[in-house]
C-alpha cells in the first residue's frame, strides 16, 4: 500500500468523522425502520421473534442504501476524482479504499444498532452471533454493490442508485436471513456464511473493476 493510498484513507476517514451525519443518519434510519414493524404488526412476542431476521435484514439493506450516494459525489464535484485517474496508483485499489471506508462508517455502526434491534424484536439468543456474522459479510457486499450503483448514477438521484442495487442484493438478503433463521432452529448455518463469503471474494475484484469502468464514463 503506497503512501498516497494511506493518505486517502486518512483523509476520507477524517472527513467522515468530522461530519457526524455521515454515520449517525444511517443508524437512526435503521432504528426507525425497525421500530415501525412492531408498530405496524403489533407487539406480539412470538410474531416478532419469528419475523426478526427478515426485519433486521431489510432495515440493514435500506439503511445501507441511504448512505451510498456520497461515496463518490463529493470527490467528483471538487476534482479529487480527477487526481485518482491521473495518478499512478491502480484506480480500482482507490475505489476499494473508498468502499472499505464506506463500510467502516455505515456497516460497522450497523452491527451495534442490529444488536439493539435483536433485543427489541425478541431475536432468539442462538441467532445473535450468526446475525452479526451475516451482517458483516452482507453489509460489505452491499457497500460494494452500492459503489457500483453510485458510480453508474453519479450526480443523479439516490433512488435511482437504490433501484439499480436492490434487485442485485436479493441473494445477500436470502442468504443472510437463512443464516439467522437456521441458527434459531439449531441447524448448521456455516454453509450460508461461506456462500456469502464467496460472493464477497468474487465481488471485490470484479465489482471494483466495473466501478472504475463506470467512473471513467465521466471522463470521455
Amino acid at each position, binding site marked *: 500500500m503506497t503512501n498516497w493510498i494511506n493518505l486517502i484513507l486518512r483523509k476520507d476517514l477524517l472527513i467522515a468523522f468530522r461530519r457526524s451525519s455521515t454515520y449517525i443518519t444511517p443508524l437512526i434510519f435503521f432504528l426507525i425502520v425497525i421500530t415501525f414493524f412492531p408498530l405496524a404488526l403489533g407487539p406480539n412476542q412470538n410474531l416478532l421473534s419469528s419475523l426478526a431476521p427478515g426485519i433486521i435484514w431489510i432495515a440493514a439493506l435500506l439503511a445501507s442504501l441511504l448512505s451510498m450516494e456520497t461515496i463518490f459525489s463529493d470527490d467528483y464535484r471538487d476534482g479529487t476524482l*480527477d487526481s485518482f485517474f491521473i495518478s499512478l496508483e491502480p484506480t480500482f485499489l482507490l475505489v476499494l479504499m473508498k468502499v472499505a471506508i464506506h463500510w467502516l462508517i455505515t456497516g460497522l455502526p450497523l452491527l451495534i444498532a442490529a444488536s439493539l434491534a435483536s433485543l427489541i424484536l425478541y431475536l432468539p439468543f442462538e441467532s445473535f452471533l450468526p446475525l452479526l456474522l451475516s451482517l458483516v459479510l452482507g453489509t460489505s457486499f452491499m457497500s460494494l454493490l452500492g459503489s457500483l450503483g453510485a458510480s453508474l448514477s453519479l450526480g443523479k438521484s439516490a433512488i435511482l442508485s437504490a433501484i439499480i442495487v436492490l434487485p442485485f442484493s436479493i441473494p445477500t438478503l436470502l442468504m443472510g436471513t437463512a443464516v439467522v433463521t437456521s441458527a434459531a432452529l439449531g441447524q448448521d448455518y456455516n454453509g450460508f456464511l461461506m456462500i456469502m463469503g464467496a460472493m464477497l471474494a468474487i465481488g471485490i475484484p470484479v465489482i471494483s473493476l466495473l466501478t472504475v469502468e463506470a467512473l471513467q464514463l465521466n*471522463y470521455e
Partner: protein
Amino acid sequence: MFPNLKVENLSCVRSETTLFENLNFEVLPGQNLEIIGSNGSGKTTLLRVILGLAKQESGKLSWLNSDNNYETFRTFNCFYQGHNLAIKNLLTVYENLYMTKVSSKLTDEKIMLSLNRVGLTRSNEFAGNLSVGQRKRISIARWLLDDYKIYFIDEPFSALDNEATSLIENLIEELNDKGSSFVITGHRPSNIVANRIDI
C-alpha cells in the same frame, strides 16, 4: 528528467461542435504555455485531453518522444490544479496540504514554509471557513510541496486580487528558473512570459 510534451494536430469535438483543431505546440523545460479563450471555448477540455482525462478526436500527444503514452505521462512528476480546487472543506489548511500527493515525504517544515510563502498564517483553520481567494492560496501553496516538472493550472488568475496575482507571477518566474514549466489557461493574456495559443 523533463517530460517534453509535444502536441501535433490535436483536435477535439464535443456535442457536434469542434472545440479546437490542428493545434501544434511544444512544452520544453522552463517554458510556459498560455491557452487563452472565452468561456466554453475548450481550454479546460484541452488541458484535460493532455492529462488523459478527456478524449481527443484526432492528433498526437507525445511525452518525451514516446507516442501518446498515458502511462509515460503518469510516471512524471506533474501537477494538476483544476477549476475545482480539490480542497476539502472539512480539513484544515494544514491537512489539505498534508494530503497532497508528493514523491517524497512531506515534512512539517516544508508545509509551513509554503504556507508562509503564500501568505497564509492560520494553518489550523478549516478550509470551509476561508474566502475564495484564501482557498486559492492553499492551492498555490501546493505548488511548492514537491519538485514538479510541469504545472497544469486551469485559470490560475481568476478571482484574485492584485497582491495574489503578483504572488503567482513571481512564483511562476522562480519555478521557471528552476526548470519547471507552466501550462495555464485564462480569459485574457497575463503578464507571465509564455507562448500563447488562442482558442
